[in-house]
């Protein structure tokens, strides 16, 4: 499977008020093209997405949070699996975009992550206590998994096995740096939730 094709399929099934936490590399540009929105928080690093998504889902339990993570990133923060399994936030869906490679830039040959060997992240999540885990390998399986997760009110952990191919179309680059993207997201949360997270002057 091609990741961008999967992302476009996901984008077509969303309600329009979901919040997204996303990793780094070309995945960010692909999501930006598949689903351009200020509701995406681009973390730009490995090993921080899932934890951030758990915190966001905890703060806003009435909002659906979708985490776009990767195999390399999950492997860097396996501690989050234990938190997911014990807390089971019902408003969180974790997609692990697993190309079995430390490569999101379409370079060849892609260097392997541990999931190219015996490591099975979905089974690890299940072992940590996550009830709804699956690994999908075809577009049909991906569509079915997305529909099931979006219809449910449960934590889902979906490992998407995809290849390292580039998108078939030319994509534009996301231009916001981390700080600008953070503020876009933050101001959207403030407006949509009626909150003041970063007022002009901090007050206790």
């Amino acid at each position, binding site marked *: 499977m091609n990741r961008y094709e999967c992302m476009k399929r996901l984008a077509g099934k969303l309600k329009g008020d979901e919040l997204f*936490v996303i990793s780094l590399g070309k995945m960010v540009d692909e999501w930006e093209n598949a689903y351009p929105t200020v509701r995406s*928080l681009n*973390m*730009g*690093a490995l*090993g*921080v*997405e*899932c*934890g*951030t*998504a*758990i*915190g*966001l*889902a*905890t*703060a*806003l339990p009435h909002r659906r949070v979708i985490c776009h993570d990767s195999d390399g990133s999950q492997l860097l*923060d396996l*501690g*989050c699996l*234990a*938190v997911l399994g*014990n*807390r089971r936030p019902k408003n969180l869906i974790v997609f692990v975009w697993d190309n079995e490679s430390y490569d999101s830039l379409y370079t060849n040959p892609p260097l392997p992550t541990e999931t190219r060997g015996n490591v099975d992240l979905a089974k690890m999540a299940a072992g940590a206590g996550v009830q709804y885990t699956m690994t999908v390998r075809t577009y049909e399986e991906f569509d079915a998994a997305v529909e099931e997760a979006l219809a449910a009110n449960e934590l889902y952990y979906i490992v998407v096995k995809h290849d390292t191919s580039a998108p078939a179309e030319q994509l534009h680059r996301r231009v916001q740096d*981390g*700080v600008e*993207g*953070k503020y876009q*997201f*933050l101001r959207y*949360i*403030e407006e949509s*939730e009626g*909150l003041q*997270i*970063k007022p002009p*002057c*901090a*007050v*206790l």
Partner: protein
Amino acid sequence: MISMEDANQIMDALEEAHVKVVVFLPESRLKPLYSMLLNDSRFEVITVPNESTGVCIAAGAWIGGKRSVMIMENSGVRVACEALARIGLERQIPIFIMMAYRGDFGEENWWGVNHGITMEPVLHALRIPYQVVRHSEDLKPAIHNAVLHAETSMYHTAVIVGRSVIS
């Protein structure tokens, strides 16, 4: 170990600062605080197996509109260093950290000394402003100031509870 009175003082200060989400990885010096937090309905408490996971959760809660704190031993700042750098230096999402000062001057355990050797240099490297609290009466103002300063600077802050308070 910290006294029940000081643990209560910390929880009251967190409540006064409108901290809603408390993330922690427990250790022995602040043990009464962790035990009391688990049974205190004023806070959403999240336990973690790794300090790096913990600071990420604290960051996510903050950007979702809930003030948060990560409480841990000071060895945790080494574990969480990469996540703190990414979230703070790249994103400027502030994380308020409270730590027990293992390895403070007068440390009685050989294995605790290294925590003290590395903590302040790591905080300096990450440019995290901090206050070491050595008197119980300074706990509340230190917590209040750390919460305020984190949001004003949009960067991490730390309160380190010194040996005179936790021993």
